[in-house]
């Protein structure tokens, strides 16, 4: 039993028989188990495991400076005795008091040999090797974030309740998790984690938070709870999109956000997408120009959303009717907001921006890149293909029509002029 405890404490990591010899343990054996001292002393049983491992893993001082022994190809120390238990060996013996209890039920167990386990060795090697190989954490596709099992993009659940107020219906998404290195006078270089998360209930309430801590989970928790305390409310137009296009910037990050129709979806930076989902915006297009700093993007987007004006405010600012045209409604002019006092045509200045989009975008224009033809469209074979395809251009439609009419691909002439094979049959 003592040996068992010793192995557990990881004090000894030498082969068992060497141990047995040293401790002078003489189990009561009748089998041909050798108790005599080991005659052959080799390199492997002369030195303790730590030293052996060190000889393999150690890198010279000069090498360490060059960065050897890091990254890929690095040898790690591993426990080769993993999975092995005292009292269980090649020969499957039952040792009462060692590998089995002395009394089972009312019965006194006896030392006996059990049938051999053929797969023991395989199992052992499997357990041993499972340590060394790099194992990727597998996540449910629903739980996955933006990239595999990495945290950004993953859900953290609602923020912790404050007192009795619970965040029901809220969900938190990680936007960023990174490690920061800080130099300290006494400790030298220390590692901190910084996390940025967004939390929201999908019905207009959302907030973002930044948290720093020594460990990643702590940083995430801090960020999450901070986000829960900084909630903002946003109006959502018709429950699916923003009120109007807008331009917003933070630092060198510029974002052009466009209002879109129902069913358009979220075509934007992934962080903006998560924010929109947290708020409950379903349709929008956003183009980020300039710096791609994620924290700046998040801040710029929130600022932009907060600076939105409702239709009534816009109409009051301009002192003109604001009229909405929808293509699906035959462009019927629907007055969405009217000011208390309407200006006449003479009162409008000449250099005033009257175009709605231009007005709400503050005269900023989105860069529209030129669309180049697909790489194959300029090639000669594509022209050849198009010419050949000309012959078959309507065949699919004809097949479909024939199938709906006759149930198969045949025409009225098929009965008149049957196929030769059919004729012979």
């Amino acid at each position: 039993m003592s040996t068992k405890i010793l192995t557990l404490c990881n004090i000894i990591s030498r082969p068992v028989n060497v141990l047995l010899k040293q401790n002078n343990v003489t189990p009561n054996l009748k089998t041909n188990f050798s108790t005599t001292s080991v005659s052959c002393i080799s390199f492997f049983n002369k030195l303790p495991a730590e030293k052996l491992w060190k000889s393999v893993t150690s890198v010279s001082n000069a090498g360490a400076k060059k960065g050897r022994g890091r990254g890929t190809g690095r040898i790690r120390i591993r426990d080769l005795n993993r999975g092995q238990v005292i009292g269980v060996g090649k020969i499957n013996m039952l040792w009462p008091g060692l590998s089995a209890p002395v009394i089972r039920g009312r019965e006194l167990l006896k030392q006996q040999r059990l049938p051999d386990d053929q797969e023991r060795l395989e199992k052992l090697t499997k357990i041993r090797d499972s340590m060394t190989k790099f194992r990727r954490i597998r996540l449910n596709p629903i739980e996955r974030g933006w990239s595999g099992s990495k945290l950004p993009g993953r859900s953290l659940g609602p923020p912790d309740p404050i007192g009795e107020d619970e965040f029901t219906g809220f969900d938190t998404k990680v936007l960023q998790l990174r490690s920061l290195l800080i130099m300290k006078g006494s400790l030298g270089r220390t590692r901190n984690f910084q996390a940025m998360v967004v939390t929201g209930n999908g019905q207009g309430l959302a907030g973002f938070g930044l948290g720093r801590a020594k460990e990643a989970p702590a940083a995430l928790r801090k960020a999450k709870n901070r986000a829960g305390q900084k909630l903002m409310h946003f109006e959502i137009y018709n429950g699916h999109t923003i009120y109007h296009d807008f331009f917003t910037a933070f630092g060198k990050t510029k974002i052009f956000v466009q209002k879109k129709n129902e069913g358009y979806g979220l075509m934007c930076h992934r962080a903006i997408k998560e924010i929109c989902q947290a708020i409950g915006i379903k349709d929008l297009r956003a183009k980020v120009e300039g710096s791609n700093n994620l924290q700046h993007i998040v801040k710029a987007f929130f600022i932009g959303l907060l600076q939105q004006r409702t239709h009534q405010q816009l109409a009051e600012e301009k002192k003109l009717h604001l009229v909405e045209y929808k293509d699906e409604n035959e462009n019927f002019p629907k007055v969405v907001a009217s000011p208390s006092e309407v200006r006449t045509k003479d009162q409008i200045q000449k250099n005033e921006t009257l175009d709605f989009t231009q007005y709400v975008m503050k005269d900023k224009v989105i860069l529209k890149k030129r669309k180049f033809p697909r790489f194959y469209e300029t090639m000669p074979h594509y022209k050849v293909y198009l010419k050949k395809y000309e012959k078959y251009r309507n065949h699919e439609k004809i097949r479909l029509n024939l199938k709906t009419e006759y149930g198969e691909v045949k025409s009225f002439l098929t009965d008149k002029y049957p196929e030769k094979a059919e004729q012979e049959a």
Partner: protein
Amino acid sequence: MSLIFRRLARNNPRNIVTDAQILIISSRKLSLVPSLYDGDQDPAPKFFSSNVQILLKRLTRPDFNKVFRKRTNHGFSVLKTPSYKFLTNEELEEEIAKANEKADRLLQMPPVVKIQQHIEDVLSNDPALIGYDTAKYIFTDITFGVANEHRIIIERDPDGTLRSCDHDVRKRLNQAYFPLNGRKLREPLMFADIEKLNSLLDREKYEFVLDRACVQYEPDEPSYQRVTSITYQHVDSKSKYELLRSTRHFGPMTFYLTWHKSMDNLMLELIQGGAVREAVLLSALRQDIHGDVANGDVARTLAQQILPTPVQLTKPETLTEEDIQLDSKCVECIEKYITGTSSMKSQQELALQGFREYYQQLIDLSRGLKKAHGKQ
């Protein structure tokens, strides 16, 4: 009220003898008989006369929310981003005027015309060509800029006769050489198979059926008149007029019912809905078409007074004195119509009585309000 009538009708249908009621009873079994405009009288001059057109348009009760509703079968599969404009008062008025024009276009009624006559027009006969070919030759003049109905389409028969083609062939070839969007070369199954048509009607897809019929057929085709007449009768029997209001099909349906003198169910629905002014317009319409209404001239003059007033989409909440005057005139007029020409007297009288009671309450309420405000 209609419940009482139905119970009556179920108990002893023989006691009730009038035509309209028999029509209703028979159509409840959904054995609808199509009736075409194929009599001696041509409905086109009546239908296109400005009086009737105005009345029909007013009876459509155009609600812009429904006229400009979101249409799914509109030719674009994806919605578009809405656009916005800042407008002054004058510009807004212009835009609304444009929208009114657009509404007129959307509510343009499919024409009601007499059924088409066969074209029998032999151009020449050359017996020496007998045996030239076993198939017909059909020649289509595809000269640019000629309307479908004026296009020259002729055939050379195997017996050497050169003749103008009949309507079905003309339609087929016009569609082959100058396809209309949405029209199919062969008749769609929903029209060809009466079972499928009936199932559509039972699901109350009236507008879909009528729209598709408009695309598929010409208005003077027998098939068009067959499909539309069945649909109108179905709507009439189920009293689902509300489904066709604010669409372009309400006018032709009203015209159809009035032409066949079976518009009393519609009249009943109008009275029950409290739209007495429209009921007067309907009787004026009947006077215009048939001239057999008891006090037709009164109805006509009253209609002239009603037309300038705004369309009542919902029941009014307060009344002015002019409204009260006009409505009481309307009620009198309808009363005479019911006693004189109606074929559903008892129910319409009951409905009118109900309306009177409701209206008296409304009058008291609005007069009381005025007094409370101290205007009188």
